[in-house]
């Protein structure tokens, strides 16, 4: 894996700007306006050539819909997706086919026969045993080195994501709540959800057992998300402001953004 610094800064392959993807739900009452479930609710990130961005979150957080929206396997409701500076959302016919050739979705089998520039890999190793998982991850790293492929690596497994990714984005209820270089996600997690995810992972070391409970309660229904910061219902440090105001993504360090009212923006101290 080439280091983040080796990946040229202005070599952006993919830009996702304020992506929103909603699905209509069935009406439950007569004369009701059609309710919507916004699986992806304002997601922005960019991906450089030869870079791996890990997209992590629990079920229903919208990570899979994000990947599918980028490839237009589902139609985004709003936002822009720029692939090599071209807006993917207006592509038709031959152009769309050309885009699909250079951007591939991988579900279980990363041995794409074509030579893509971007691979959206959705849980490519989660169904595999660890001994096989290592083989596949190493293969993906080798292919990236050889062909300078970019990966959007979608997974619920933070340990795997941290291993393979240059940068990691943490999603919760349709939004990215933190994005940072992979080593920072582990060493300096900022968002309370990232911290909870990290401490919930059982580490294969009997001397560092999980201490007590990390989070209480289930993930809220994405069709009816909480007001303000959507994590506040499970957040151990939630305050009044969190129910009133949406927490926006702010830079809290170099290349490190997080969306939490409790965090000081970079340079504020």
């Amino acid at each position, binding site marked *: *894996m080439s280091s983040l610094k080796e990946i040229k800064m202005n070599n952006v392959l993919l830009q996702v700007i304020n992506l929103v993807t909603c699905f209509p739900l069935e009406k439950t009452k007569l004369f009701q306006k059609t309710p919507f479930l916004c699986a992806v609710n304002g997601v922005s990130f960019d991906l450089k050539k030869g870079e791996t961005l890990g997209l992590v979150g*629990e*079920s229903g957080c919208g990570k899979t819909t994000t990947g599918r929206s980028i490839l237009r396997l589902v139609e985004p409701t709003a936002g822009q997706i720029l692939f090599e500076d071209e807006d993917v959302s207006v592509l038709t016919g031959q152009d769309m086919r050309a885009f699909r050739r250079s951007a591939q979705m991988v579900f279980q089998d990363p041995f794409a026969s074509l030579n893509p520039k971007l691979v959206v890999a959705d849980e490519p190793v989660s169904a595999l*045993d*660890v*001994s*096989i*998982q*290592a*083989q596949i*991850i*190493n293969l993906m*790293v080798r292919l990236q080195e050889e062909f300078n492929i970019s990966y959007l690596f979608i997974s*619920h497994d*933070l*340990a*795997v994501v*941290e*291993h*393979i990714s240059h940068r990691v984005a943490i999603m919760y209820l349709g939004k990215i709540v933190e994005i940072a270089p*992979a*080593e920072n996600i*582990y*060493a300096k997690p900022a968002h309370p959800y990232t911290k*909870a*995810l*990290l*401490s*919930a*992972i*059982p*580490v*294969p*070391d*009997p*001397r560092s*057992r*999980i201490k*007590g*409970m*990390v*989070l*209480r309660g*289930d*993930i809220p229904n994405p069709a009816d998300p909480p007001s303000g910061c959507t994590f506040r219902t499970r957040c151990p440090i939630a305050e009044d402001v969190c129910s009133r105001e949406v927490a926006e993504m702010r830079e809290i360090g170099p290349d490190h953004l997080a969306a939490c009212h409790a965090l000081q923006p970079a340079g504020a101290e």
Partner: protein
Amino acid sequence: MDRTNNSEPILKLEDLSTHFAVPEGIARAVEHLSYHVFEGETLGVVGESGCGKSVAALSILRLIPIPPGRIASGKILFMGQNLLELPMKKMRKIRGDQISMVFQDPMTSFNPVFTIGYQLSKVFTLHQKLSRKEAVKRSVDMLEACEIPSPERIMKVYPHQLSGGMRQRVMIAMALGCNPTVLIADEPTTALDVTIQAEILDLILRLKKKFGMAMILITHDLGIIANSAQRVVVMYAGEKVEEADVLSLFEKPGHPYTIALMKSLPHLGKTKKFLNEIEGVVPPPFRVIQGCKFAERCPEAMERCRKERPRLRSIEKGHMVACHL
């Protein structure tokens, strides 16, 4: 864990072999497997898919379909009696009452057309011969013990109306309902998200302590083993390759397979470019192998390994390894 040296294990597998007739021949899913669990202890059984860890558990409860399955050898001693010799009627009484099981996917363990309350209270009317009213009360108590909010409401809903974490809590309430002596948990959190997994594991361990049960925790996840087990059995291709105290296993793993498995895991906070791979794949269970089943993938295999099956030998107190090295 308080355990006197001379105490007998509550459950003991002795030389268990479970085979299945398949078109290719005989699949030896479990071969000459021995393990035991003491009262109040958590035994972790770890291995990758197809290693036989679940088949062994189903054999304990005699839930293996016969045919195509067959218990080819061995004994399963539960409080001294061989479960394999019991008449089915007696076995049904033990199952769910004294030995109960939690499965990976609670959705497939519930009947979708009955309410949670109906299915849960059935446990008490069947096993403990409680009246309908008493059974409902007991069910609500059990849901409460499993930290399910508004248990009376949950009694009236159907399985699909619950989240995965909630369904697993109900499953646990059902398994613990009759206060079993041994709980077998087969990948109890594999289908759950990591934050929910942490909650459920924490709940299982606390309830285990509260009710003083022994537990056999079956998982593919070495992290869960490190977090929850006291003693560990490592299985590969139907056999036990290593057995040790949890600290000893992680600090001084003895079998090349255990070592390779640990090295192939990505570790949080430790960056390296490539993971250690275990080359090749697990041999199919119907292939007859003379020597060590791991030999073809083992980086240290010698001539002897391909010819002669290694016996378990002790490398220190309570730590056994099946390897010629």
